[in-house]
């Protein structure tokens, strides 16, 4: 059933090009538009978990055992890169890598893969689109684009920093009010929060996310079957990476890639996906009592 679901999503991703109109990531369904790449994350998690639960062992995965997961990840990954949506593609990849490393890879293979990814970096570089290269370059050296991404990062840092300890109060942040921030209700919403609620508020939020991630791992810990454990780890990895990338981005620690902050950013697909993930976690958490 889940397999069919994920395939359906992939087909959606394939056809969205036709429906997207001005934008390239959305699939219009009457009044609402959804972003299939969000749902793909969950599908990938379930697929990988199902496979790893069967093959995982103490010695780690061999090269042959990694082939199928590679295909499962590569197909949606390439489709999302094509959209192009570098942020979501990166999250999918990071989830897959986290899950794979969690179930352990053979030491030799690990070294090999590490070597390949280091040497493959330049190769990927050539495949990136101009504006994506620009973003990475801007991150490495914000002077390169002081009028675009570099300016956004500076304004975001000003917004966050000017919140100081207690913040300016809700709705009173000038950076927010004067539209200095780009996409202030989606990717840069954390800057608004930090400006208006200060260090206290933003730290509290970070702490809540930490609790969520820790609790997710705790659920994985409490589960008695490998599938439940791995799926919980995958879901937790998704939340973790999105929080980390988003906050690191708006605070100027990482390139400007469009990754929404779970629960906070505006966006139906993102909200629904995160809620489904929490549903999965609750499910796994509940089931640990069934055997007792």
């Amino acid at each position, binding site marked *: 059933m889940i397999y069919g679901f994920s395939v359906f999503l992939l087909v959606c991703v394939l056809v969205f090009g036709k429906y997207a109109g001005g934008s390239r990531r959305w699939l219009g369904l009457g009044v609402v538009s959804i972003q299939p790449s969000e749902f793909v994350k969950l599908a990938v998690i379930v697929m990988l978990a199902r496979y790893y639960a069967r093959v995982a062992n103490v010695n780690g995965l061999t090269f042959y055992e990694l082939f199928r997961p590679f295909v499962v990840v590569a197909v949606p990954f390439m489709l999302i890169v094509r959209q192009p949506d570098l942020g979501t593609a990166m999250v999918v990849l990071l989830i897959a890598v986290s899950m794979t490393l969690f179930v352990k890879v053979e030491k030799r293979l690990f070294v090999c893969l590490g070597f390949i990814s280091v040497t493959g970096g330049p190769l990927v570089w050539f495949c990136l689109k101009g504006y994506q290269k620009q973003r990475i370059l801007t991150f490495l050296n914000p002077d390169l684009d002081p009028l675009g991404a570099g300016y956004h990062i500076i304004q975001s840092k000003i917004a966050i920093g000017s919140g100081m300890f207690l913040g300016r109060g809700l709705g009173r942040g000038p950076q927010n009010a004067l539209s200095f921030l780009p996409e202030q209700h989606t990717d840069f919403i954390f800057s608004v929060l930090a400006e208006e609620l200060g260090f206290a508020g933003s730290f509290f939020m970070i702490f809540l996310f930490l609790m969520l991630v820790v609790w997710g791992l705790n659920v994985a810990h409490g589960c008695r079957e490998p599938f439940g454990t791995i799926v919980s780890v995958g879901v937790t990895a998704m939340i973790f990476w999105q929080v980390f990338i988003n906050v690191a981005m708006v605070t100027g620690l990482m390139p400007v890639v469009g990754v929404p902050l779970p629960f906070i950013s505006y966006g139906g697909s993102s909200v*629904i996906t995160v809620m489904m993930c929490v549903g999965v976690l609750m499910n796994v958490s509940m089931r640990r009592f069934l055997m007792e």
Partner: protein
Amino acid sequence: MFDRPFVQRFDWCLFGLMFLLGCMGLVVLYSAVTAGSDAPRKLLVVRQVLWYGAGGVLLVFFFCVSTSCWSNGPM
């Protein structure tokens, strides 16, 4: 099999965290779309709430479906 009442087995901690984050999200979103703008896009907040509702339904769905029926599939 169900040796404890639902209330005890339910992961209230997880639920609480989610609820808290969701509420914070809505408040900040409201601030982000209304502050300083001549034409506040308050509709976005309403839509976000609707999305939460839809997400809640799916949450319950994923919560109820037994994990065993996803773990036994191809691959």
